[in-house]
């Protein structure tokens, strides 16, 4: 009898020990405290789940870095005639030379600089204008809302390619003009988005609480409302960035955008208007075309991932 009890006790002890080790094992695993992480950490964690977007971010970072460091990286001056006319890629000229003997690789680096500059500046302008008008229209309502939104409708209903063509014809086509034109064309979407968000937020208790607390309008608009609508603005801005880079390429391709000798991805494609270039000299148009596609796609992927990562209601932890 006693022996049996002993055995059972031993068994029990073993079992308990076993359970203990299991529990200790669990304890050893570092448990991430999701509740205590900051908003930024949450966004980062969610963003990392989109592998395509992370890769895109790397691509954009590399290309952007190359564009930024163009004067250092480029083997030749972009406008310098250094080789034969329309020379094929070789050791000396990695991507060949263009019709008047400039190094395509060097020009490509500078072109990317210009294209990114146009895209980013146009996006910045349209975001600032759109956010300002959207905030005003949404918060003050009434006549301000009426005027701003009708103006927005007018700009939106304009066939914008036509607007850009006319504007480019009236003003001298050039880098800053194209930036201003594209910036002016793209703000209505942002203005509408911001206005809608403000209309929602204005009804929330924390905004009302701030009104009751007697906080000034500037504080309510920029410190309470704006931070709560940054996420959708950021997502929208990425698509505006991609779009305005495409628009710049299209306009420059048509000869109305960035003017030669300055290189942009669009006016480098200009050469492809000729059949000989298109069929016989692919090094002149494939690299810039490919760069446009890659940049625009990467930016769009990043925007998609941002949408998921920034949205508190996307349902993922």
């Amino acid at each position: 009898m006693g022996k049996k009890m002993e055995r059972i006790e031993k068994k029990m002890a073993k079992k308990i020990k076993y359970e203990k080790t299991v529990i200790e094992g669990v304890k050893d695993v570092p448990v991430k405290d999701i509740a205590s992480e900051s908003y930024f950490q949450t966004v980062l964690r969610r963003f990392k789940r989109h592998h395509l977007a992370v890769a895109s971010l790397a691509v954009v970072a590399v290309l952007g870095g190359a564009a930024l460091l163009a004067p250092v990286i480029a083997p030749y001056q972009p406008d310098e005639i250094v080789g034969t006319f329309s020379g094929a890629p070789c050791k000396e000229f990695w991507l060949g030379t263009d019709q008047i003997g400039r190094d395509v690789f060097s020009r490509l680096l500078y072109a990317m600089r210009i294209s990114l500059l146009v895209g980013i500046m146009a996006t910045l302008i349209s975001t600032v204008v759109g956010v300002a008008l959207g905030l005003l229209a949404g918060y003050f309502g009434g006549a301000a809302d009426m005027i701003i939104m009708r103006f927005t409708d007018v700009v939106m209903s304009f066939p914008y390619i036509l607007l850009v063509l006319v504007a480019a014809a009236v003003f001298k086509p050039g880098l800053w003009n194209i930036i201003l034109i594209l910036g002016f064309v793209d703000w209505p979407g942002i203005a509408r988005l911001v206005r809608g968000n403000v209309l929602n937020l204005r009804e929330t208790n924390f905004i009302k609480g701030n009104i009751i607390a007697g906080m000034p309008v500037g504080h309510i608009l920029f410190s309470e409302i704006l931070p709560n609508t940054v996420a959708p603005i950021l997502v929208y801005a990425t698509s505006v960035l991609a779009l305005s880079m495409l628009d710049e390429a299209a306009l420059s391709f048509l000869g109305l955008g960035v003017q030669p000798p300055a290189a942009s991805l669009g006016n480098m494609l200009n050469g492809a208007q000729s059949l000989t270039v298109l069929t016989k000299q692919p090094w002149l148009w494939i690299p810039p075309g490919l760069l446009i596609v890659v940049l625009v796609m990467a930016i769009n992927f990043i925007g998609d991932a941002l949408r998921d990562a920034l949205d508190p209601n996307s349902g993922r932890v």
Partner: protein
Amino acid sequence: MKDSRNTPLIQVEDLKMYYPVKGGIISHTTGFIRAVDGISFSIMEGETLGLVGESGCGKSTIGRGLVGLEKPVGGRILYEGKDLSLLGRRDMKRIRTQLQMVFQDPYSSLNPRKHIFEILAQPMLYHRISTKGTVEKDILKILDMVGLSRNVLGRYPHEFSGGQRQRIGIAKALSLNPRFIVCDEPVSALDVSIQAQILNLLKSLQKELNLTLLFVGHGLGAVNYVSSRVAVMYLGKIVEMGEAKEIFNHPVHPYTKALLDAVPVPDPEEKQKKRDLLQGEIGDSVHPPEGCRFHLRCPYAADMCRQKEPELTGEKAGNGHYAACPIVMQDKGGQDIV
């Protein structure tokens, strides 16, 4: 203290708050929702006035009007005897902080992008209630009053439970040294166990700081618990008003009776008792019924109720107990009829 009890801090005279109803092809105003339609009452310094009524009767609208969130279309709101709508900007800015509000939904009353320290400190610094050097100390004092500790400061609203958030909401209201706080159904979004804590907190804070409260609620138990006086609203009008004990023990108006009757009693014996529940729904506030607004649902409605809108009077009910019902007032002065 004794003296202050008898001076009204808030006086409301014939307050009217309408919302336009837009309609038609070219959206124009086709009518008005008469959320609050000619209401007068006053709140004494240091007392709690409870405001009860069905959803949609306009009780929250009164609260919003008192703190200046919405402008009345008629009538006056007097604060310390001064008409709020006539005050200049500078006076308004000073008084602004003295009228605060605690919201119903603790989940939307705090900015999700700011941590608690920012939420509490910014208004205090703006109104120079404290300085950069003292603000943390002041906040800790307030947090202590509402039963929170210093470790909440660096956290974001989503890290807290409903009850904790409501405590933060109360702290935010208190941080501006208010004299009058509108509590707009402050416990109806909370668990029952938490409700009691928040009610006790409000009650003790009121005593400690000599606050004047307007407690808006549809939970009769909660209103009874915190209020010294109670006003019952129906469709934009006050139908009965008086000491909380009086209202709950000797209701006069048929609507108040029905409201109290609808409270479930946790007693199996009571189950047998048939209740006179109200039929129909609260009326249309765009076209309120003529005469007494309650007559469509009132079991005692007579001809006179359909013709003339009854006044809120206190003749028969006595000792500060007012009711707007000619039938009961005529009859037995507040005793049960039928």
